[in-house]
């Protein structure tokens, strides 16, 4: 198959998300109607909270955040991998891929299935907390204006690489299954409420909702395309436990050499955020 033919077969992820709104409306209406009035109110309240406060969170490691603030632009996965491979004195991206191809396979199938797939940036839908910290415990929250700007955004009910029913052997991406679980920005709340309805109805305290929506191993994936600069940051959240450890134990010579380095870098990051008037939180 020629490159042009392959390109013509690619789908527009963001169009697929927009095409799913009627189905989400219908499912939300049906599920909501089946609930007892009190439970329905809880589900509607959760959806309203996500509608109002839902943001894209991008988790990263300390130096990725520092590099982002310094360079002025969020890098995609290809750029990060190349840069770090060079810094570590290791082989280039292509030779690593050759050796460890299976680790990249599904990601490349996923990117290859969609128009502009290689430009995709990833995050999570977030209404509070440290987000999907499995990839980094510095949680950058992108501001609401991003939704009104030139960005293309789609929300996927579960992690695109992790969710079994999105994949068939090969690996082959099951686009129809995936498309049923996509939402555009306008319907992120309904997607979230449908996914978590049992948990939110079971949880008596709305303060647990941020953790239900987005935690270390559970998230609604946000896939987006656009240029992200520090100007698009609404706030950056840090683990309070680490801040406390560095601020107190850093003065007691009770940190390892690596942690001392991290403590010093944290100070640099916090200073930069203050200079850029970007809000910071310890959670």
């Amino acid at each position, binding site marked *: 198959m020629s490159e042009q033919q392959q390109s013509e077969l690619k789908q527009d992820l963001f169009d697929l998300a927009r095409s799913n709104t009627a189905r989400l409306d219908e499912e939300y209406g049906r599920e909501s109607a089946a609930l007892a009035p009190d439970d329905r109110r809880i589900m509607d309240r959760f959806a309203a909270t996500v509608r109002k406060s839902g943001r894209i969170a991008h988790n990263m490691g300390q130096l990725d955040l520092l590099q982002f603030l310094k360079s002025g632009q969020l890098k995609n996965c290809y750029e990060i991998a190349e840069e770090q491979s060079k810094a570590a004195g290791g082989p280039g991206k292509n030779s690593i891929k050759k050796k460890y191809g299976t680790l990249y396979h599904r990601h490349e199938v996923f990117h290859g299935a969609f128009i502009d797939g290689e430009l995709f940036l990833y995050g999570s839908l977030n209404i509070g907390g440290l987000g999907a910290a499995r990839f980094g415990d510095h949680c950058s929250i992108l501001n609401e204006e991003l939704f009104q700007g030139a960005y293309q955004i789609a929300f996927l009910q579960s992690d695109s*690489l992790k969710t079994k029913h999105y994949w068939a052997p090969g690996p082959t991406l099951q686009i129809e299954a995936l498309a049923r679980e996509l939402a555009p920005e306008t319907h992120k709340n309904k997607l979230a409420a449908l996914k978590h309805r049992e948990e939110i109805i079971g949880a008596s305290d709305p303060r647990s909702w941020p953790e239900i929506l987005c935690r270390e191993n559970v998230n609604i994936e946000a896939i987006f395309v656009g240029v992200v600069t520090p100007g698009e940051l609404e706030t950056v959240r840090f683990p309070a436990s680490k801040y406390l450890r560095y601020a107190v134990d850093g003065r007691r010579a009770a940190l390892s050499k690596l942690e001392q380095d991290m403590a010093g870098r944290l100070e640099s990051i916090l200073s930069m955020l203050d200079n850029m008037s970007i809000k910071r939180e310890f959670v």
Partner: protein
Amino acid sequence: MIVLAAAKLQEGWAYVRDGERLILLRPPYKVYDQTSTDEPTLEAAVSRYGYQPMNREFEDWEPLVEFLEEQAIKTRRALGYPPPRMENIRGLIRFATKEMAHEILARVEKELIPGHELITASGILADLQELDAVKSDPELPGRIQFLLKQTMSKSRISWSRHEVPEKYLLKSQIQTIEFINQGASSIQPSNH
């Protein structure tokens, strides 16, 4: 035998295979810094978040942790970040929010003062009391004064008990004693 599957070297974060288990390991590498994870998460870490595949065997956890710490420092230097200065680490206190200030004071009260780490305690208290977030809080200034008093009282006992001649004290220790003595005359009685 454990296998380092992939790592974010600059952060010291690593995916490690221990038999059938796949573990995400993070600094400071205590037991609670180990989280069970799965293959798709490892795939995402490598293909989307810049983790480097490694496939390197280690006899035990200790040499693995040593390797990760060493590589993290090496990679940080290669990326152009020099060792931090102590003043950077000390400067972290100035970013304390009210909530964090309360937490820091709890540690000063429960760990540093009972542990006779009085120089560290008084340094932290002195820095905290300069913060706007602290000054505007109804409770924090009084709590700091109370803890400074405790620190001074323990310091006097400590110095008089040991009667260490001044020539054996570090400059910073002398400054702390001076600071404490000055503080004694300026501190107002608190409600505690």
